[in-house]
């Protein structure tokens, strides 16, 4: 999945009567992919996939998030995030079984890749480090209700 958007280009150069073949293979996805690309919403979606695995698919993730975050989460938004994560290589997917409430249509099941796993671990690592460095009375008191 990493090779989406491949653009290859071949030419040659003549230099001192010798021919140098130049093959340019550009993979746009790789160039664009950086760690910082994991957005906040993507992060919770990724984590929810991990929670629901192996039964993680768009509707289930959306329902779960709606419950956890307490606001309406559309399937479309989740679907878009899942697609992006898959494109970045953090998720992989396969088609699951059909169900009656889907009108006999199959669902796409997602599971976390090694890269995805490393990603969530790294993010957690960063947060833990930051939490560890916050002084005891720095955060004002409030009632978690």
């Amino acid at each position, binding site marked *: 999945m990493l090779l989406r958007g491949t653009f290859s280009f071949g030419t040659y150069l003549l230099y001192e009567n010798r021919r140098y073949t130049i093959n340019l293979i550009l993979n746009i996805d790789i160039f664009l992919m950086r760690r910082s690309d994991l957005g906040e919403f993507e992060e919770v979606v990724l984590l929810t996939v991990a929670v629901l695995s192996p039964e993680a698919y*768009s509707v289930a993730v959306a329902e779960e998030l709606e419950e956890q975050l307490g606001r*309406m989460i*559309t399937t479309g938004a989740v*679907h878009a995030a899942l697609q992006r994560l898959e494109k970045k290589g953090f998720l992989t997917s396969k088609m699951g079984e059909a169900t009656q409430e889907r009108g006999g*249509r199959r669902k796409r099941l997602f599971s976390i890749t090694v890269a995805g796993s490393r990603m969530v671990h790294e993010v957690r690592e960063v947060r833990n480090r930051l939490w560890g460095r916050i002084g005891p009375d720095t955060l004002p008191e409030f009632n978690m209700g």
Partner: protein
Amino acid sequence: MAAFNSKPPKWIDKLLERICPSYLLEEILGDLHERYALRAERVGEAKAKAKRQYMREVMAYMRTIILSKSSSEYNKFISMGMLSNYLKVAWRNLTKNLGYSFINIGGLALGMAVAIIIGLWIHDELSFNKNHENYDRIARVMRNGTLNAETFTTNYEPYALGEELREKYGSNFEHVVMVMSVTEHILADDDNKLYLEGGFIEKEGPEMFTFNMIEGTRKGLEDPHSIILSASGARALFGDENPIDKTLKLDNNLDVKITGVYEDLPHNSHFQGISFFAPFELYYAENEWISLQGFGNNFLDVYVQISEQTDFETVTSTIKDVIIQNLDGSGNKGYLEVNPQLFLHPMAKWHLYSEFKNGKSAGGLIQFVWLFGIVGLFVLLLACINFMNLNTARSEKRAKEVGIRKAIGSARKQLIGQFLSESLLVVCLSFYISLVLVSVSLSWFNDLASKQIEMPWQSVEFWLASLSFILITGFIAGSYPALYLSSFHPVRVLKGTFKVGRLASLPRKVLVVFQFTVSVTLVIGTIIVFKQIQFAKDRPVGYTRENLLSIPMMTSEFHNKYEVLETALLNTGVVAESSQSLGSLTGIGSSNGGFNWRDKIPDFQVEFATITVSADYGETVGWEFLQGRDFSSELASDSSGIILNETAAKILGFENPVGESMHWEPGWREAKDYRVIGVIKDMIMQSPYAPPMPTVFYMDGYTNMIHLKIKPEVSISEALPQIERVLKETIPSAPFNFKFADQEYALKFAAEEQIGKLASVFAVLTIFISCLGLFGLASFVAEQRTKEIGIRKILGASVINLWRMLSLDFVILVLISSFIAIPLAYFLLNNWLENYEYKTEISWWIFMVSGGGALGITLLTVSFQAIKSALANPIKSLRNE
């Protein structure tokens, strides 16, 4: 889960099926339905809420759907790779069938060239007068009047009107400008004398018409003894010298100083070709009596620029009665009865809507704009039809290609795209060729249409128009083949059971009929236009135009020294007769009412052309008498004699008019009784298509033209230098300026001849394009039936049999077109001829000739192919496969 039975709205499913890429459809629809069911369960009976949330869900997917649609690799692969394949296949198809391609591209290029030229012509016609900045606020004051229940319209107004509008109605106008006697005048810089066209204009004129001054300012005419020249006029008089502050003599008596030079007005301006303007004050100073004539004598033009806050209709209704209000009941009784009504004719309409009938605008050149616009469109359409016809005819050959493409997985949409891009390629090629054709033929067209159109290479609008033109033509020409070819069923085509039905050729036949209907109609039209011109040319004119030349009497010396001049001219031995008259022979410059005679019906009003002549006039022009005798210089009583033309005699109604007396009281000259001494055959002095005006010739009046009859045995080239020499010696102040009567008369046919020539060019082109298409079709049909022809030959069919078989289809089509075209053309041309009072009749032979001609050309075109295939060796056509 079964608690909630209702399903999400069906139409959304349908919509998504249409717009969603197929690889996403299943999961998206599944997600939506499942989520809907979940929500519906939660909200229970509140269906509305579930539906509302469902819509939000759908909207949330839209972004994904749209993004994946445009970025999908599947799509990219098609648009890039296939496009180059389409172009490659299109190019191969073109080069493989060079003959067809030539017909296709050549025909289309020809059609486009005609359309471009006509487009340029129309653009030029529509651009008239737009160079004047105040274009949309300028108007000319026109006047309607009613004589014998018929309304006439004229642009001549009295001097008093200009003053009245300026003084009493000034708030309506920014400028009121009177213009007087725009005609040829003598401009002299010492010995350098030229006849230049020009006139007298009030001092605000240059400002109102926004002349572009090269030297001096637009205020140049404030000094009454000044003059402004056009750039070309200045060059003609002074070459490259600076003309400013130089002095000129105008018409040999007025000294004027040059205060400005303006850029020549463009050819599409109303004042085109005018070389100078002198101040109106100068004219007025010489002719102060014009202010005494009140509102009765109409002789100048009044132009106005209305003020910003008002519009033409409002001003028209304000000023329409100005003349009537200023006429007094006694002296102008007759004129009051004419009921003069003023109105404004906006500058935007001067050129295209210049004609008036019964006081209402009756169009004018705009009719030709429409006519040629339609013709151009038709020519282009015919060329497009060729393209469509040839492509669909060849469809069977390409059916296999379509079949294979479909079997591999081409969608119909893609095939339509393929054929459209193919036609676009052809149209682009044709457009290139048509540009070449247009730039080559433009100068020739300019001659024909007396225009100065240039190729607008620099104009952005032109290229934008061309681009849309290419797209539209490509689309029209390509649409039918694209839709038709892409509808083939792949399995049947590849199995070989594909058969084009009998009905498949029907649209093709309809198109051929349409082509030939247009062509035959145009041919009939052309013949009738030329017949009408010939008819008018053959009309008896009532005088002899040959060897007759006229010289305007520009200065008073002509009048003072006329006797001397006449003697000297006759003494040269080349001049047979010399005489004078008011106005030229090929126009009527003066007409009057106020005639009375015995038994005249009291309320009957009639205008007679009133022409002053000298005694030898009749001899000079060679008029023919029906009754009575010519003027004689020996009889003193002939100064109150009068000669009528036939039409005038009929109006008088006497069986024997000679000897009857006529009382003439025009108001502006003393009343007098005349005695009729003769009646001549009508002379065609005005339009050769109109009935002659009732005319009276009398001797005691003002003359301004000398007519010379050159002896028939003397050649013109011999006579002219002699006449010039005499003129120069006798009247050195005037340059030699003359016109031949036969040339002037020929000019009366110029407009109609121009139409005739243009129409014949278009007729030839339409026929040519139609035949080109027919030729392509015929050769295609012959090729398609090669095997059939071979078998028929083997079984004993003769060449004649085969020729008849192949030609008959086309002959029938052309016959049908002729039967449609004949009534159509009859209707259209009958309407056209209604414009002329003296008109030819539409006789049956025209239709026979046009129909027969079309049939003949068709046979010629088709026979070439038919005979070629009929003569071919059957072994060759049957051997392969």
